């Protein structure tokens, strides 16, 4: 190595002026062009955007399924779709919304925003991050590709046995469903591990535990819930597919198995799943409420403790999905109590947000308006949830539209309204341009009225006895009017998303320029350019308060001494975030994509022959070795 190269190699950020540093770092951390470059990128922002775009495409697909179902149900005795297709539609709708949209869209925001908010240059294990995205993508493509080829699961998003067993459901539909679960859970678990490590070890110096933004705390708890909940569904879906493919007997009562074992494993995951989908929504709300109230969220400590309490309690609720399966009374009583108890930390959060708005000077921009909509809808859904926690009420309305109304209030109110708020709020950071406010307010009007017109009548339909998952109903039931109303609302609600799509496309082209911090927010993602450079920050900030951008005044502390021509980032200590190591972040690599491709091939192949696992594993192993094997001597030091 020539002395000149040696010298260039060792350049530190303290040696350079701001402009040159920016250019050099952007070259070091940038992604290559061309197909290989696109598939090799490990930039968390690019992967995060891919996650988000993919999740929104699935939202659209799941939404179209919902619209077809609503058109079918708009009038009695309708034959727009037949019973078989209807079963496939509600299965695909639920599965898509839960596994291909609800979970991944939270991951998308986590992957994009957490590294920026904690002030680091990339997510921990960035190649695993790229791998996780491709695994998710392939899982979604497999499910929908199967649907296009008439391989369609039709046994509900929870795939209960014995209905999902081979003798009642021949064909490959449930196998595709079970493997899609494995794909998406692998992805979600990988992202959770990355977020945990990013938050614990890559925070900017000075970001002690009590200075971590609430958004980040929420996604940390969210990641831990995934780590403890998702193994249950991976285990369950693997057991189901083995039951169907190699004849295991886990769920067969004639051979010592039990169908309820499926339900226990499914809901051990399935109830935390509600919080896995909901917690990113609360993360958005915490960030948006603080920014538009112009003060930090009231009650930081109770907020964090509530989050952790929700994390624990979410694992004590699963049996309330099984109240009608004939449980011992003590079990029912316990799960009723815990189902009501979780309303307490949720209530604490709501009161803290309201107190923040009360004490602040709320600015009614679109993100905050959607958050206000969230309060209304989510609280309504929470109240019907407390009703359902009571066994006698649950037994009456089980499997009726009352339950459909309840969980759409919770999931759409708790997740989708904050999500739309988050899109408006962070769109300028991602694209550099603001979304149109006027269209945003129109969208809110459409969404809020459309949502309530769709789902409020379902409470009444449920109380009148209309069961879930029926493709039609006779006119004599008298359910026609409310169903027609719900279907009209669904069209309005769907239109609100088309309006958002238009707003996003139009604003990305010609929206008002945003600048670094258009909302005057306090967290670190707003301390860098919009959109951020590949290196996120030219100089890693040092944090001295919980609201760094509001409190820093004229004095700005930064980190110096990182190499400019290598991907170095600062690893800090767990609680006090003292700088500890200059760790090298992995460079772009094509191997994660290839490994994901081989993994997908092995998973899909295993639906047809168990030997696909035997032959696929060594291939995946070789690709993983290629992925991890050091390419240069410098990587070792």
């Amino acid at each position: 190595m020539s002395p000149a190269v040696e010298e260039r190699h060792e350049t530190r950020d303290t040696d350079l002026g701001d402009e040159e540093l920016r250019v050099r770092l952007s070259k070091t951390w940038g992604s290559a062009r061309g197909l290989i470059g696109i598939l090799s990128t490990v930039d968390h922002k690019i992967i995060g955007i891919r996650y988000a775009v993919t999740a929104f495409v699935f939202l659209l697909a799941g939404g179209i399924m919902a619209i077809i179902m609503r058109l079918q149900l708009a009038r009695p005795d309708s034959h727009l779709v037949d019973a078989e297709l209807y079963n496939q539609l509600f299965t695909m709708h639920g599965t898509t919304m839960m596994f291909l949209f609800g979970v991944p869209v939270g991951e998308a925001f986590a992957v994009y925003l957490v590294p920026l908010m904690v002030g680091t240059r990339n997510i921990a294990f960035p190649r695993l991050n790229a791998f996780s995205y491709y695994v998710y993508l392939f899982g979604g493509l497999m499910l929908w590709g199967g649907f296009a080829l008439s391989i369609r699961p039709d046994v509900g998003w929870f795939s209960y046995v014995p209905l999902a067993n081979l003798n009642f459901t021949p064909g490959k539909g449930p196998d595709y469903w079970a493997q899609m679960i494995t794909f998406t859970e692998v992805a979600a678990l990988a992202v959770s591990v990355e977020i945990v490590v990013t938050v614990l070890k890559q925070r900017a110096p000075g970001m002690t535990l009590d200075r971590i933004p609430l958004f980040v705390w929420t996604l940390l708890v969210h990641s831990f819930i995934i780590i403890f909940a998702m193994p249950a569904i991976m285990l369950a879906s693997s057991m189901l597919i083995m039951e169907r493919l190699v004849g295991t007997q886990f769920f067969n009562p004639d051979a010592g198995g039990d169908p309820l074992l499926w339900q226990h494993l499914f809901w051990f995951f399935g109830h935390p799943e509600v919080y896995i989908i909901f917690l990113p929504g609360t993360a958005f709300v915490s960030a948006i409420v603080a920014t538009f109230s112009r003060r930090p969220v009231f009650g930081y400590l109770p907020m964090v403790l509530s989050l952790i309490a929700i994390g624990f309690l979410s694992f004590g609720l699963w049996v309330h999905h099984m109240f009608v399966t004939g449980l011992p009374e003590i079990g029912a009583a316990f799960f009723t109590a815990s189902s009501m108890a979780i309303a307490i930390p949720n209530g604490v959060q709501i009161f803290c947000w309201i107190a923040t708005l009360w004490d602040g000077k709320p600015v009614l921009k679109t993100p905050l308006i959607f958050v206000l909509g969230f309060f209304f809808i989510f609280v309504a859904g929470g109240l019907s949830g407390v009703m359902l926690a009571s066994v006698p009420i649950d037994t009456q309305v089980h499997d009726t539209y009352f339950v459909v109304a309840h969980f759409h209030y919770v999931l759409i109110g708790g997740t989708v309204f904050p999500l739309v708020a988050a899109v408006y709020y962070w769109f300028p950071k991602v694209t550099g341009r603001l979304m149109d406010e006027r269209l945003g307010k129109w969208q809110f009007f459409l969404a809020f009225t459309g949502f309530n017109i769709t789902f409020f009548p379902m409470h009444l339909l449920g109380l009148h006895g209309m069961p879930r998952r029926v493709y039609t109903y006779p006119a004599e039931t008298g359910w026609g009017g409310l169903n027609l109303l719900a279907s009209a609302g669904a069209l309005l609600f769907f239109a609100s998303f088309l309006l958002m799509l238009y707003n996003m496309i139009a604003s990305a082209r010609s929206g008002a320029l945003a600048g670094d911090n258009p909302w005057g927010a306090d967290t670190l993602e707003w301390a860098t350019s919009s959109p951020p450079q590949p290196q996120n920050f030219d100089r890693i900030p040092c944090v001295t308060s919980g609201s760094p951008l509001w409190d820093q005044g004229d004095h700005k502390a930064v980190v110096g001494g990182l190499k400019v021509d290598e991907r170095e980032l600062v690893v800090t200590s767990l609680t006090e975030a003292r700088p500890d190591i200059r760790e090298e972040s992995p460079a772009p690599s094509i191997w994660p994509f290839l490994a994901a491709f081989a993994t997908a091939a092995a998973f899909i192949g295993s639906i047809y022959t168990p030997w696909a696992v035997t032959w696929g594993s060594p291939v995946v192993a070789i690709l993983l070795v290629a992925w991890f094997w050091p390419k240069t001597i410098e990587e070792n030091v």
Partner: protein
Amino acid sequence: MARSVIDVSGLPTYAFGSRVTPWWGTFSFCLLEGTGFALGIGGYLYLAVTNKDWPKDAVPLSLLWSALFTLVLVISALPNFLIKRAATRESLRSVRLLLLIMSAVGLVLIGLRIMEFSALPVRWSDNAYGSFVWLLLGLHGVHVLTDVADTLVLTVLMFTRHGTGKRFSDAEDNAFYWYFVVLSWFPLYAVLYWLPRF
């Protein structure tokens, strides 16, 4: 704007144990895989409690191969501990030697597990008990297999020009994960081999 700088140029580029990110990654994977084991055992116990035919179904498994497996596994904790220590001291000679030993131990364990499977008195398709025996043994077997494969690759790596610096931290991390493979076996061993005998 005034700017002060915290100088990090003197910090190391790698370290050991919980100071580095890979340790936390491995730790998180232990948590999630441990949850998988716990739920598997939970499912097994659930059926043991709810199924009235369980005692008849639950044929006790032979103690021979599993005893050998458990013995070798427990003994492997010693070279594993020594690898951790040698890696932290960055002693290349010791790490190479110990990795060779651990690779051999791992291959022996895989052999014992194969013998175990071939000697099982029950097939996965016979009844739910058999399904669980195969599932739990298989789940743990996959962990043994992946960590032994990882150890073999690492052994080769340490004999190349890459056997330096950060790779000692990788060797330490690999030893950390092996403890998980060892520890996760004990509850499985108790449930699969001893519970049906009581």
